[in-house]
């Protein structure tokens, strides 16, 4: 055996650095030659908590603004969506992300950090969402949701989206105030980086309510997709009987999309607004075949209760879009393959990382699937979302440099 002098590191002595944490992801990107195609991440996050002071200044109502300032944001948190994401210190980026040095004050910290992880994963364009705001729909003070959503959207579009073309978003809609939600679409459509609008599905107002029809028409007219981002609510009566985050998360993140999807379909919203594209986010995929089968079976017996439908529920669901994360990869690949077939994954599935959250998925979760053709992988990782969001084909500067290196070496 040879004896050699290696590089030896003590990870406990190193400062937190996103690039270092994701070094293996970067290696995956290089090994798989992600520079050959565009990757769009349809669900990623930042922590708007770090920008609270700036966002609060955008709250137009002085009463609500003062409440936010003096409660340091707790006004937002009159609800319970879980917590425990950091697993008692196991997921180290939760504890240490705040300590990461960000050189150069010229750009917002969230832009710098977001581009860092995007480059490591091989993502060219990321759709960025907030984090605690996923539970804002539970806030019993309607004006708080409307005021804070508008403030956040103004701050996001002005300070992040306008400054970095690789970061886009679907903007939060304050659905507890339908008129305010409609105004949001009217006022923010067309701004740089606004590729659609978002309903957070932890909420208890039915989305087929007549109050929303103008909103859906406005989105359809503009050709903008409506996304439904799941979360959990540990305070929900049914979730309240679970005693572990794994249970509340596994069930809640599917349940809230299941209930709104069911209402969406049986009330015939896809028939009423056939041009309105919907995207269902962060419930994984296994729930979709379950709900398709369940609704189709009942529809054949009770079609009189869903008279707007001209086809089976699954026919509408198959035309919607789904984000891939957190994909159920454990144990049964045959089921996963069948799921891909049932949802027309080649055209309807869009990759999502959910980074930096605890159950994030890398692009390799799609790229390494043996039952997909190369074209299907490219569609799911980027092309489907590029078309959905009407994006130009963009490659990151890192990918362009890699292509240049390859050309020079050839």
């Amino acid at each position, binding site marked *: 055996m040879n004896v050699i002098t*290696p590089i030896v590191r003590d990870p406990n002595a190193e400062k937190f650095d996103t690039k270092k944490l994701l070094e*293996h992801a970067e290696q995956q990107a290089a090994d798989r030659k992600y520079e050959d195609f565009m990757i769009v991440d349809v669900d990623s996050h930042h922590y708007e908590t770090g920008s609270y002071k700036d966002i609060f200044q955008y709250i137009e109502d002085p009463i609500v603004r003062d409440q936010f300032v003096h409660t340091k944001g707790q006004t937002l948190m009159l609800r319970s969506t879980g917590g425990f994401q950091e697993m008692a210190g196991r997921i180290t980026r939760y504890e240490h992300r705040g300590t990461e040095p960000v050189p150069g004050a010229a750009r917002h910290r969230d832009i710098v950090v977001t581009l860092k992880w995007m480059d490591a994963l091989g993502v060219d364009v990321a759709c960025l969402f907030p984090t605690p705001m996923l539970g804002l729909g539970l806030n019993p003070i309607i004006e708080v949701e409307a005021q804070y959503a508008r403030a956040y959207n103004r701050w996001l579009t002005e300070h992040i989206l306008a400054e970095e073309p690789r970061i886009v978003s679907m903007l939060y809609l304050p659905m507890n105030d339908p008129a305010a939600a409609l105004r949001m679409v009217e006022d923010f459509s067309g701004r740089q980086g606004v590729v659609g609008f978002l309903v957070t599905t932890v909420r208890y107002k039915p989305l087929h309510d007549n109050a929303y029809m103008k909103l859906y028409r406005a989105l359809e007219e503009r050709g903008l997709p409506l996304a439904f981002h799941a979360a959990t609510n540990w305070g929900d009566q049914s979730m309240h009987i679970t005693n572990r985050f794994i249970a509340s998360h596994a069930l809640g993140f599917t349940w809230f999309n299941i209930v709104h999807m069911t209402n969406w379909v049986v009330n015939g919203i896809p028939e009423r607004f056939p041009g309105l594209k919907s995207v269902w986010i962060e419930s994984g995929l296994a729930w979709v075949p379950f709900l398709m089968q369940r609704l189709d079976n009942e529809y054949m017996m009770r079609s009189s209760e869903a008279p707007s439908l001209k086809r089976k529920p699954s026919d509408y669901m198959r035309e919607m879009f789904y984000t891939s994360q957190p994909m159920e990869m454990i144990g049964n690949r045959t089921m996963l393959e069948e799921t891909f077939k049932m949802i027309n994954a080649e055209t309807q599935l869009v990759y999502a990382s959910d980074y930096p959250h605890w159950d994030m998925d890398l692009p390799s979760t799609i790229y390494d699937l043996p039952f997909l053709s190369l074209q299907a992988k490219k569609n799911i990782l980027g092309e489907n979302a590029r078309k959905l969001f009407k994006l130009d084909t963009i490659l990151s500067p890192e990918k362009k440099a890699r292509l240049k290196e390859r050309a020079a070496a050839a």
Partner: protein
Amino acid sequence: MAQVFVCNELEMKAGDVRIVRQDRIEVGVYRHAGAYYAYRNHCAHQGGPACEGIIRNKVIDLLGPDKSFLGQTYDDNEPHIVCPWHGWEYKLTTGECAPDPKLRLRRHEIVKREGGVYVVI
């Protein structure tokens, strides 16, 4: 195969870890209860840097004689290596994935000689 120098024998304390890199291969070397263990720094889940996270003892449920749940505690005899990307846990002394022993971190041999600790890569 090469013997890669990690450290002098007294350098690592209990619970310490060092990441040794040789070409593209990274190995995490652990010191635990007087022994050394070495595993490939590659999580079986999505390829994360498994050896760069924390070490946390296994959590166990405490049950009474009638199988009532009494609480939880740590099993001090079973430390786990926790991947920092998603929290997958591996037994430090075997490299087996805690919830599924069919999966594991790849083990590397440790050689101690002349006061030095080496890992075979």
